[in-house]
């Protein structure tokens, strides 16, 4: 509960801040708070993976591209997109909330349990039940690596 407020604030910061660097920093903050929320759900393995993959690898990639491109501040013109987007978002939130939240009001997540997110169980499930999706994901990552290298190396005429 204490973490949800800063997380929501950082989420708004990602969207609302003018410069890309600032929204990237808000995003890092948000990812860390999400990792803490995962810890509170006793999903330790996923929380640590969240910190390493998102806050480590992906955000470094973002920062690297921001540094390379150094995009001048795109002047966010005030036009029809802003009110329409906000209205659309509000409508979506209302719709989802009215459908989902009343059902869940009485359901509590028990405070301290254990075992379900431990590395042992995650590894066992990953290498027995989910071994085929695991291999497919490794293939996907290989394709992603090759594709990004191809995109980065191509010389424009």
């Amino acid at each position, binding site marked *: 509960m204490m973490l949800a407020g800063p997380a929501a604030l950082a989420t708004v910061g990602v*969207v609302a801040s003018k410069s890309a660097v600032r929204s990237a920093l808000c995003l890092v903050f948000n990812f860390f708070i999400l990792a803490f*929320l995962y810890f509170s759900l006793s999903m330790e393995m996923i929380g640590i993976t969240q910190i390493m993959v998102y806050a480590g690898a992906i955000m470094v990639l973002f920062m690297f591209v921001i540094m390379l491109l150094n995009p001048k501040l795109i002047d966010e013109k005030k036009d029809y997109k802003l009110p329409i987007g906000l209205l659309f978002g509000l409508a979506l939130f209302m719709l989802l909330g009215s459908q*989902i939240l009343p059902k869940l009001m009485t359901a509590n997540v028990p405070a301290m349990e254990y075992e379900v997110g431990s590395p042992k169980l995650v590894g066992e499930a990953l290498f027995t039940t989910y071994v085929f999706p695991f291999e497919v994901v490794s293939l996907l990552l290989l394709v*992603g690596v090759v*594709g990004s290298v191809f*995109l980065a190396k191509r010389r424009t005429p």
Partner: protein
Amino acid sequence: MNGVPLAAYIGLSMFMFTTGVVGVVIRRNPIVIFMCIELMLNAVNLAFLSFARYRYAADGVSVNLAMNGPMMVIFVMAVAAAEVAVGLGIIMAIYRLKEEVDVDEINLIKG
């Protein structure tokens, strides 16, 4: 034993997802749009994990069934990593081609 209501986790997840959608709609910087997509993926991860946790603890499903949520989160993370690598590569390529990164002004496919 009383804990945090499930609605709190799901509410935060919904809020993050909606904010990500709004960001994708209203922003023009493609890097920020990518960040908003990451935000949406993370919102879905949070919903997956809280539901998995709740089903395990309250409904008493078996551990094997409760691992479905965390497994899906791991796969979402892998797909997000690949997507970010390829997407940022595309942004770099477009920037080298056009010296411009405003998504409303890019119309390469028109030829």
